């Protein structure tokens, strides 16, 4: 336990420089690069003094370094600033939208793993057969499908032609969403309220977006699981368990898969950022009221403080997940150097 706590501490300390780099990068992209947010916001024809006044109000007339210090100081206090367009704090819409993105991302992840791992195991067991070839083909093709096009195709087939699933939104119009916003996760909120009909409605809206995200990312996991399984199936302990007469099913799914999963956990951390990127596109396609849509809506409005805030929250989210993955990795793999 002590071992894990030490590791945890070191790992958290290591996250800090990474986060610092990301925050600096966001600052550089949004403040230092050419393109002046104030004149962009006010349009090309605003008089000089109006622009200067607005700049002074936002602290944009200070030297870049002073702005940078202000920016970090503000973040350290947990303050993301105020919107330039709407009279609200930047964190207000983020708090509202973040649960929608997390709900979508987690469901997408579940679909990815539920498809990727069993298919990968199957391909490894049936190595160099038609099944293996077919599964590998699936993995490669799916990997090359743009997420948003997958969304459009699923919408077209299951939403428009077969009319089975809704193609937009998180919840049906007849359900009033403000009835349950305790956590913002509609799946949890509806259950907390005991409203089973609404729960099914939420799930029903979630299916197409989750499959869109899940199918496109499953390719990577198929390939990874297959490669790891092939490696593990050659190992001595698999041979030993076979020799001892352990049923093949148990050898594969219990002895081998457990060890093959370890590198997959690491991969999960890296793929998580692909998942978030995919979620932005899925949100756009399915009019899903999440962080990605917020980002794009505010880009069109040129609301720079909110854009900055959303990107920072994404950065925090990615760092947090990679931290969690590393901890899980340390727990499941006793060989890891702590």
């Amino acid at each position, binding site marked *: 336990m002590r071992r894990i706590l030490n590791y945890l501490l070191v790992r958290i300390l290591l996250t800090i420089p990474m986060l610092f780099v990301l925050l600096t*990068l966001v600052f550089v992209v949004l403040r230092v*690069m050419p*393109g002046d947010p104030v004149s962009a916001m006010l349009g090309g024809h605003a008089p000089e003094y109006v622009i200067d006044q607005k700049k002074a109000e936002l602290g944009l007339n200070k030297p870049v370094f002073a702005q940078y210090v202000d920016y970090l100081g503000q973040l350290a206090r947990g303050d993301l600033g105020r919107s330039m367009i709407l009279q609200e704090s930047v964190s207000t819409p983020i708090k509202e939208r973040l649960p929608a993105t997390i709900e979508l991302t987690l469901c997408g992840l579940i679909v990815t793993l539920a498809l990727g791992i069993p298919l990968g195991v199957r391909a490894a067991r049936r190595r160099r057969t038609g099944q293996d070839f077919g599964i590998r083909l699936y993995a490669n*093709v799916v990997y090359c499908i743009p997420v948003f*096009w997958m969304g459009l195709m699923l919408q077209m087939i299951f939403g*428009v032609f077969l009319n089975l699933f809704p193609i937009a939104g998180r919840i049906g119009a007849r359900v009033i969403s403000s009835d349950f916003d305790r956590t913002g996760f509609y799946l949890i909120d509806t259950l907390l309220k005991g409203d089973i009909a609404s729960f099914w409605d939420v799930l029903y809206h979630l299916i197409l977006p989750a499959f869109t995200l899940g199918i496109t990312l499953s390719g990577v996991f198929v390939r990874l699981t297959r490669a790891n399984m092939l490696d593990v199936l050659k190992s001595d302990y698999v041979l030993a368990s076979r020799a001892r007469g352990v049923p093949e099913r148990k050898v594969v799914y219990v002895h081998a898969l457990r060890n093959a999963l370890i590198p997959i956990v690491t991969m999960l951390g890296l793929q998580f950022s692909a998942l*978030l990127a995919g979620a932005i596109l899925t949100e756009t396609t399915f009019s899903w009221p999440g962080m990605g849509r917020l*980002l794009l809506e505010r880009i069109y409005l040129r609301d720079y403080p909110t854009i900055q805030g959303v990107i920072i929250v994404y950065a925090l989210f990615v760092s947090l997940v990679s931290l969690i993955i590393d901890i899980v990795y340390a727990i499941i793999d006793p060989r890891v150097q702590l």
Partner: protein
Amino acid sequence: MNDTQGGMEIRAARFSPAGAVAGLFRRFSEAARRYRMEWWILIAGCVVVAAILCMTLLPHLFTQFSPVDQNAGPQMKAPSAAHIMGTDNLGRDVWARVVYGARTILGVAIAASVLSALIGIPLGLISGFSGRLGDKVLSLIMDSVYSFPGLILAIAFAAMLGPGVINITVAVAVIYIPTYFRLVRGQTLSIKQELYVEAANAIGARRPTVLAKYIFPNVIATVVVVFSLNVADAIMTEAALSYIGLGLPSGIADWGMDLSMGKKFLPSGVWWMITYPGLMIMLLALGFTMLGEGLSEILNPRLQEY
């Protein structure tokens, strides 16, 4: 296997273009015999990429319509003999837009990949070779950027730079610099330990010579593979940026933009406007992926899958 490795070391010690071509040729013919399947994958990739390359170079051979001609046919007509992929909401021919759109996406994806390779490779080489504090700092920065969702970064860049072909190229290029950096740095670190580099140092070769003549030629084989896979990825990033409306000024035929346009008419059952541009994005990305995978098996036999 040992033979090949020995051969590689000899070539590494004395790098000449003719020798490299001959070596590459031998590698390919060897591969053709050994990995039949990979060979087919490579050929399939080449065919797809070549076909789409033809489209970008000689679009008028593929279609008689102009991609911006609003009187090409009736509006929103399903595919027929006159318009094999139908027409869009403004009466433009979808096939013509698919043909001319290839130029945009392929140009941006290749230019962006070249740009990030040109920045990432030298940085990785120097960083890995020299070590020291600069290497640590640069690695930290690159790793942080690498861990961040590339698309979000590209969105931020594209939003700040505004629409334009050059701007979208820069926005896409930025996110792939760490890919090259990490790859080349890792390779440089391991090649630095090889005997022939030690020998070069021992006979008094200057550091730039060692880097250029002994390390760089051995790094480049992996870069070729990654470049091809990178183009595939850049294709999807470009398409994503223009799909969400950030990348290109209107008036240019682009698959991503056509998809976002077609999305509006999907609820009324207009399937042809979204099916074909997306299919082409997939095909193009698949072509480059197959090219990369095939090359990977052939150029780096040590990495082969069993």
